[in-house]
């Protein structure tokens, strides 16, 4: 065998091993994605949102930062075009609007509460709760990529949210689409994802009126 023949054989072996290795890597499942999300110790991500509202002639665009500390602390701070914030602490949802902090009591409106909770459940990988609230359709879309479609089981929630579509890779959420009951749609794209251990008392989750 010539030297070239040896190199080709070696390359072929390496290639076949690589292919074999790839072939053995399992496609993501709902369980594996949820399990992976459940292991997160928190993250910070930038997001860009585009909201299509029937009342408005053009979509609304906004940018901001999302903070998450498992199991149920979430802060969504919009920096552009105008600053606002929403902090979720368990069932408690507070919003900073202008100079006022308003508390939305999730239990006052079961549908809004369920919607807010469902987003937190998704981020914390709470599979049981998600499946209790939604009909889940999971699809592996190639490699570690996946997509998820959540359809509310409760008609009251269904009137508020027609469906939630999420897409990601491995344990990262990349896009979230919420189709509301009246057809309005918001699409959030997450970038600059950074795993960070956050605690509930982190300043990111504190809400103070300016």
């Amino acid at each position: 065998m010539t030297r070239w023949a040896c190199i080709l054989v070696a390359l072929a072996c390496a290639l076949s091993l690589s292919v074999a290795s790839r072939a053995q890597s399992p496609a993501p499942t709902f369980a594996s994605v949820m399990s992976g999300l459940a292991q997160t110790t928190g993250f910070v991500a930038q997001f860009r949102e585009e909201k299509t509202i029937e009342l408005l002639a053009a979509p609304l665009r906004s940018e901001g930062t999302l903070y998450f500390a498992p199991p149920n602390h979430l802060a969504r701070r919009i920096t552009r075009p105008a600053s606002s914030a929403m902090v979720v602490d368990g069932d408690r949802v507070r919003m900073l609007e202008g100079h006022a902090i308003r508390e939305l009591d999730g239990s006052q409106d079961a549908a809004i509460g369920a919607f807010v909770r469902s987003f937190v459940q998704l981020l914390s990988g709470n599979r049981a709760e998600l499946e209790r609230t939604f009909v889940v359709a999971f699809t592996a879309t190639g490699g570690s990529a996946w997509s998820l479609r959540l359809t509310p089981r409760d008609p009251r929630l269904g009137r508020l949210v027609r469906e939630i579509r999420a897409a990601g890779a491995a344990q990262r959420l990349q896009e979230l689409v919420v189709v509301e009951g009246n057809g309005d749609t918001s699409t959030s794209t997450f970038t600059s994802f950074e795993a960070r251990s956050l605690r509930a008392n982190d300043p990111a989750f504190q809400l103070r009126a300016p």
Partner: protein
Amino acid sequence: MTRLGAALVFLAVCALGATAAVRIEVSNDVAAFMPDGHDNERAQIFQALLAGENTRGSVYAVGAPSAAAAVVASRAFAERLRRDPEILRVENGFAASDGEGVARLYRSREAYFLSDAPNADTWSDTRLRTAFRRLTEQLALPTGGLARSLATRDPFMVFQHRVDALAAMRPEGLVARDGVYLTRDERHAVLFVTSRESPFAAAKQAPLLRRIEQAFAAVNANQHGRLTLAQSGFARFAVASELAIRNDVTRISILSAVGVILFTLLLFRSVRFLLLTFVPVVVGMAAAVSVSYAVFGAVHGITLAFGCALIGVTEDYPVHLLNHHTFAGKGTTPAQSLKRVWIGLLLGAGTTTVGLLGLGSTTFSAMREIAVFASTGVIGALLATRYLVPPFLPVAEAAPPQARVALTLERVLAAFRRRPRVVGAVWLVALLVVAVGLPRVRWNDDLSRLNAEHPEWRAEDARVRALVGAPDATRMVVALGRDDNTALRVNDAVAEALQEATVAQEVTSFQSAHSILWSRETQEESAESARRADGFGERFRALASEVGFRDSVFDPFLRELGSPTTQPLSYEEVRTSPLGTVLQRFRLSLPQSIAYVTFLRGVQHSDALNARIASISGAVYLDQKEFLRDAYGAFRTRTLQLLALGALGVLLIALVRYRRIRAVVAVCFPAWTAAATTLGILGLVGVEGNLMHLLALVLVLSMGIDYGIFMAEHSEESELPSTLLSVVAATVTTILSFGLLALSTNPALRSLGMATGIGLALCMVLAPLALISLRGDGSRTA
């Protein structure tokens, strides 16, 4: 009157008294110590507040190991409480249907709630543009679904503003979990319980409180004893106070009766005399209860206690008669003895009644009750002494055993006569105490000082209020009107003024019915101002489009504004909606008007706020504590004036009777000095003076004058021993009844007993000494 006739009258009066005693209601309503509502608006408001839902409400905090356990406990506890017929309402959170009910209330009425104070700028382009931008921001929120569903009819987010205003009315310390109120630490469920009856209706409240405790015990048993219960509210204090007064009255009455019986038996050694001394007492009590029932229908506990104490006082009349009769000498008939003492008894009862009736001219219902109760008792006892006792008296025989006591007293008096310096020293000491102590008397007009103290309950009450974050409901603004709409119109003006006061930092925040309902005029003006605004529809559409809204999306709103399909929201509609219970907390029904109360938080500049509110016709700023202090201060001043007036009346009566200055001084000066010395002693020992002390002084003056009259009427040497004995017997029996009130746990009764005991003891000493001082060698002066 024959014995049979006397016995029949006695039985008839007793039967009447017993019937009234069974029917009469005993209250401990604090309002009885307020000036009557007829006097001024503030008193009416105060009394209505006391009778209103806020006073009937209690807050229960159920402690639990977790939020979930608290939610379960709250639901179970509320369910049990709602079954109780005496409970009007239990609020432990939001019902799911409440939100829909509230939405229905404001639906299609958005134009009526656009602006409560529209002006030229309200509908300017700038303001409209700002409103559209705010709506856009709201739509962009993750929770903007509600705004999106309502926006076409409600572009100014009227409903959202109403919901926010309602949320702001919830106590600051509460959150709702699964529709249940929890404290922020989520370790306590909070229930607001409103009873049907006033907390001062102890007959209903005491069993209700027991049933509430039992209901909690059952819930706690289901949770393995892990729950705790704390409460805040008037009911517990009122029931405890009523119970304490009842117990005190029972205990002291028994002690008093036993003491009086023993003393009388020791004095007269005759069961017949003992029974006879009780006849005027029983008749006096029966008359007092009957007349009080006929006039008032109910008596305050304090009135009852005072009435019981009258037992000892009115016993003086038969004791005085019996003393003189037994000392009168062999063969004296009861009629002759009565004739001898009658003028003294009549004068004594007359001056006492004049003093008591003076109290009746105050505007405090409790004082009027006491005046009527006591003066009726005195008159009844006097008449019984006059007509019912003599038929049962034997013809006088030899000197009775009490002669020894009387002679001893005479010797003591003689010893004083021989030592004028000692007598002078006694007067000097008394006057010194007056001179030094009187200026030191500090009056405390705080009503709460007269209530029973329960420091542990007060601490628990404060703890619950802190947990819940309930506002201090002692400062408020009241909007008055002849009907709901008129009052609401004033309330609208009050809300506007308070908004300005908040900006001026005179007050931190306020809770008002304005968050729920505006007057019809304000609602109509809200819609009309938009309709009137120059080119409103065109500008509205153009600006909406400019901000980014599609064309015609707000046509439903503009159509409703142009041609309303609904009437303005009315009180009746709110009353029957889920917001009805909230609105009721702010609404008072007064005899001639309707009032809406705005509760203030963090009043920083009371005077400025008062001035601001004073400029609104029909609005009243009310600081409950200040009001009570002022009212009681005024009452105290009035009582002092009445005391002075009463003293003048007594002086005139004495002048008419005796026509000599020395005799008048002998009658009046001991009582006046004793009253002043009593106050001086209180000042010296640092006891704060209160209304009950003043009331006691009325008694001291009334009875002290009696002593003076007895001494003046019977100052002949032959009558002196029996008169001295009468005075001492009167003092001992009175102290056995009134003085024993000093043992009461109720501060009001305690003050009364203490001052009466001191005052009458001084009267007992000073009345004979006055006689000595004025007579010198003992010759007759009167």
